[in-house]
């Protein structure tokens, strides 16, 4: 691990972490507001990528980047208005089951319309090439762009929530919905707005993420699981927690992939080598890079046991 590798890993991890944050910010908002964990959030991510692809075929990438989140946000608002609202009285399990079924349906609908193989959704040629070089490794413009979009949107979100009128109403409705209602605000409409906004964030993440990697029907499944880890580890209901957790998981993923050392190596370095013939050697010789896919879920289980609130969580659930 030299300085060059460390720096590029940090950058790659940060870009992945910021993409995760774009996704988890929406989910956190929805959960804080309505207490429902939106299983279909990763499907909105996928929907955003496909909408971005389709619109980019008609109008170009940049209009797609603007219109796709709006389209997905509209879908999200419709889902809330016509689906979730009627389930609110039936409790969190019913809402969870609904969003679970919805995620299934959205994936299938996407396959009906766009087919099963991946679609060729790419970033435009302006974003090809490198932005700068770290020693000899080039940092692609595409990744820097993703980081820029994520940073801008989230800055805007923070400002909106903190300093705008609608933001203050939303913040108030987060903890005291009834009071806000008695003050004359249409809280169900605010719920619809927040759900739609969260979905739009997911759609934006999809529109950039799908172009950066691969746009195919299973893309939501892979990132969806990590998404829940982020939300739970950061603390259900805390945006700052989600930010920290996303970055942590992004960096963990990036660094773990490049460390080819195992506990057996560590033991050997400490002077207590493990016998290769022993039965548990297979376990001890697992390198960190081999265990990289497992680490986020390990973290999830540990956090849920040790600190169920998460890093910065506020909403405790019994």
């Amino acid at each position, binding site marked *: 691990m030299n300085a060059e590798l460390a720096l590029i890993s940090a950058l790659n991890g940060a870009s992945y972490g910021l993409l995760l944050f774009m996704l988890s910010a929406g989910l956190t908002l929805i959960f804080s507001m309505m207490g429902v*964990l939106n299983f279909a959030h990763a499907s909105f991510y996928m929907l955003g990528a496909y909408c971005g692809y389709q619109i980019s075929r008609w109008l170009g990438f940049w209009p797609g980047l603007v219109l796709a989140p709006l389209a997905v946000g509209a879908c999200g608002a419709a889902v809330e208005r016509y*689906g979730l609202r*009627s*389930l609110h009285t*039936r409790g*969190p*399990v*019913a809402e*969870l*089951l*609904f969003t*679970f*079924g*919805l995620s*299934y*349906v959205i994936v*299938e*609908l996407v*396959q*009906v*319309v*766009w*087919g*099963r193989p991946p679609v060729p959704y790419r970033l435009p040629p302006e974003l090809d090439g490198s932005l700068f070089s770290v020693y000899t490794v080039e940092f692609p413009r595409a990744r820097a762009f993703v980081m820029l979009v994520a940073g801008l949107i989230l800055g805007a979100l923070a400002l909106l929530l903190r300093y705008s009128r609608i933001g203050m109403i939303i913040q108030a409705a987060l903890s005291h919905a009834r009071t806000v209602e008695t003050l004359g605000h249409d809280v169900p409409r605010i719920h619809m707005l927040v759900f739609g906004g969260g979905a739009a964030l997911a759609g934006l993440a999809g529109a950039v993420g799908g172009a950066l990697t691969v746009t195919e029907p299973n893309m939501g*499944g892979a990132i969806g*699981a990590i998404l*829940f*880890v982020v939300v*739970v580890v950061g603390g259900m209901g805390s945006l700052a927690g989600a930010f920290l957790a996303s970055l942590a998981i992004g960096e963990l993923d990036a660094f773990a992939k490049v460390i080819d050392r195992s506990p057996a190596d560590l033991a050997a370095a400490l002077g207590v080598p493990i016998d290769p013939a022993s039965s548990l050697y*297979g376990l001890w010789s*697992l390198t960190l890079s*081999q*265990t990289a*896919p*497992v680490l986020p*879920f*390990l973290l*999830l*289980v540990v956090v*849920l*046991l040790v600190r*169920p609130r998460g890093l910065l969580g506020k909403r405790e*659930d*019994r």
Partner: protein
Amino acid sequence: MKAAQWTPWLPWLAGALLLVLVPAFFTQGFVRLLFAECAIMIVFTLSYNLLLGASGMLSFGHAVYSGFGAYTTIHALNWIGRTHALVPVTALPLLGGCGGLIAGVVLGFISTRRSGTAFAMITLGLGELVGACWLMFPRFFGGEGGISGNRTVGGPLFGVPGWNLASDLQIDYVVGAWCFASIAAIRGLLGTPLGRIANAVRDNPERAEFVGYSARQVRWLMLIASSFFAGISGSLAALNFEIVSAENVGALRSGEVLLATFIGGIGYFHGPILGAVVFVFFAVALSQWTKAWQLYLGLFFVVLVLRAPGGLAAVIERAVAQVRDGSAWRRSRVLSAMGMAMVVALGGLIVLVEMTYQRTLEVAAGSVVRVFWMDIDTDRATSWALPSLFLVAGALAYDRVRRQDLAVRQPTPSTAAEVAAR
């Protein structure tokens, strides 16, 4: 014996008869496969309902236990093949159940510390954890190819030559027997004090604690029982398919059992049985006729969550009750109108979905798709207009009839003054 004494045994008798006659009567490999899959899924959903219906625990990682049962069994099968040990292959599901049980004890210790949504999240995390481990432990999980086995290694059953589980008839009977035994065992469990207390913990955990039971321990015990039966189910799958791979522990399978159990109805004992059969029908039979079966299944599930959370069992019970007390006859006009509207709308939807699939997925095969009895050319605009019309018209008609019916059955409440004036 009076009728009241043997009526409860009727469903058991009928079930046993079905399990014996169906594999014997139908000789096509396809139907026998359907039978085995149904039986396996029934045990799986019943085990899941021990968690969801009986104890109120929503789990997103249930396939882990059935997967461990499957892996234990396939390794045992290969061990029998290598060492020619005198272990009957037909008894392996018991071993698989124990495999699932051990997983339940260990993982359940972690997950049952919390309840509600947090429990659901932990099970999701644990399920993903186990799923992500499969490439790390290739000797147990088999990597990409999974682990294959041969169920004929055990030598003839009871010494009868030819009874070596090679034919699908024999494996159907073994699977059917274990299915019946599991159903009986689960039914028995639900009647024990543990089963009753689990219901209590589901309904009001605080009250149960006040009465002196530790909600956490009850949940853990129920999870252990549930994982035992899930292990049996996984074991039967291993014997039937002779291969176990990452899918057996994956999130997809966990989602499938949730879907199937909920579709059947979590509030009834026979709900999961019904749900399992319906699910296998969708997955195995319907998938032969249309590629869009997963879409139909998902939509069906969402509609059930929205409109009929009691599942199919509740719908059937309500329908039977309405027929019995005659209200179905009284409302027969309305019901048939709603039924027809629904059929029209559904027909339109199915045709539209199949046509869209033909255009996206079967592009090279041409533009004509076969739906029900018709050959439809997707290139013509009229082919699209008609089903869309059916869908919209049917949906609107259904909505209107339903609204009218509701207005008639529950007139809008009048103001207090009007009520006082009557």
